[in-house]
């Protein structure tokens, strides 16, 4: 920024620590990933829709969902983008692929990183598989990324 412009601004930061009690459903989802390399969803008793990640209430039927189902670790890429620009608030270093993956057996899309190999070679309809981190931290990033298969 030019010196002239710099004089007209006040550079501030907002640094606040937060903690979120994520709830039982998120806990079970992340634990199954961490302990058993399994990705789980929940199924609506009324319309049969399988939600991954799981939620408590089916937004269409307004029914509470208690039935847990395992969905595959593999899925199909429904849409993707390749992030090539960087700013200092981005969580990952570009370039990386990022997309909506319909895991086998799920009715909703799951958003995650698609990596390994040339991110520019990603295609809709590609088959991908979850790659789990060696050291599990009880976070969504225990699935490190999806790799093309």
């Amino acid at each position, binding site marked *: 920024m030019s010196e002239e412009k710099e004089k007209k601004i*006040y550079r501030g930061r907002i640094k606040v620590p*937060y903690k979120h009690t994520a709830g039982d459903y998120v806990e079970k989802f992340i634990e199954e990933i961490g302990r058993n390399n399994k990705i789980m969803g929940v199924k609506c008793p009324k319309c049969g829709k399988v939600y991954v990640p799981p939620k408590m209430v089916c937004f269409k039927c307004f029914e509470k969902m208690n039935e847990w189902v395992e969905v595959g670790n593999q899925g199909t890429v429904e849409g993707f983008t390749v992030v090539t620009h960087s700013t200092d608030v981005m969580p990952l270093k570009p370039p990386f692929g990022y997309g909506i993956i319909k895991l086998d057996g799920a009715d909703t899309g799951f958003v995650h990183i698609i990596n390994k190999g040339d991110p520019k070679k990603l295609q809709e309809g590609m088959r991908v598989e979850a790659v789990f981190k060696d050291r599990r931290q009880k976070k969504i990033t225990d699935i490190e990324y999806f790799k093309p298969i």
Partner: protein
Amino acid sequence: MGKKDQKEKPFEIRWKTDLPYKYAMGRVSVKFFETLKKERKLLGSKCPECGKVHFPPRGVCAECIVKMTVDDMVEVPPVGTLVGFTVVNYPFVDPQTGGMRPFPYGYGLFQLDTAQTYTMHFINEKDHEKMKIGQRVKAVFKNEMEGNLGDIPYFEIIGEE
């Protein structure tokens, strides 16, 4: 969902935001900090309609709904009268730093001479028994000015009414 054992800790996800912002200060604030840095003087804003002197300076007189520009800024002496005081004595995270703000610290409401508004700022007294409404206070400036509010680290009590 079953009932959780009382001793079980609920699953928490923790994170810390750390977001940068470039706040446009506005011409009036820019002029204030430039003058503070170069001339070690305080400026307020005087409404061209009602004559009310505002400190801190700002771009609009709220009651008249009239614009106040850089030309409406007037010098305000760095001394005033204490109107209210407290000693903040509890821990909290300062969002500017992400860490705890040091406490206890004196904090007061005072009216600078010739200004018609009140201002809140640090006071360098940690014992509320030593503070009294009506005391005279004076702005303390840093030796090396940077051009932000930190150039006035606190106000000090300079005497009784």
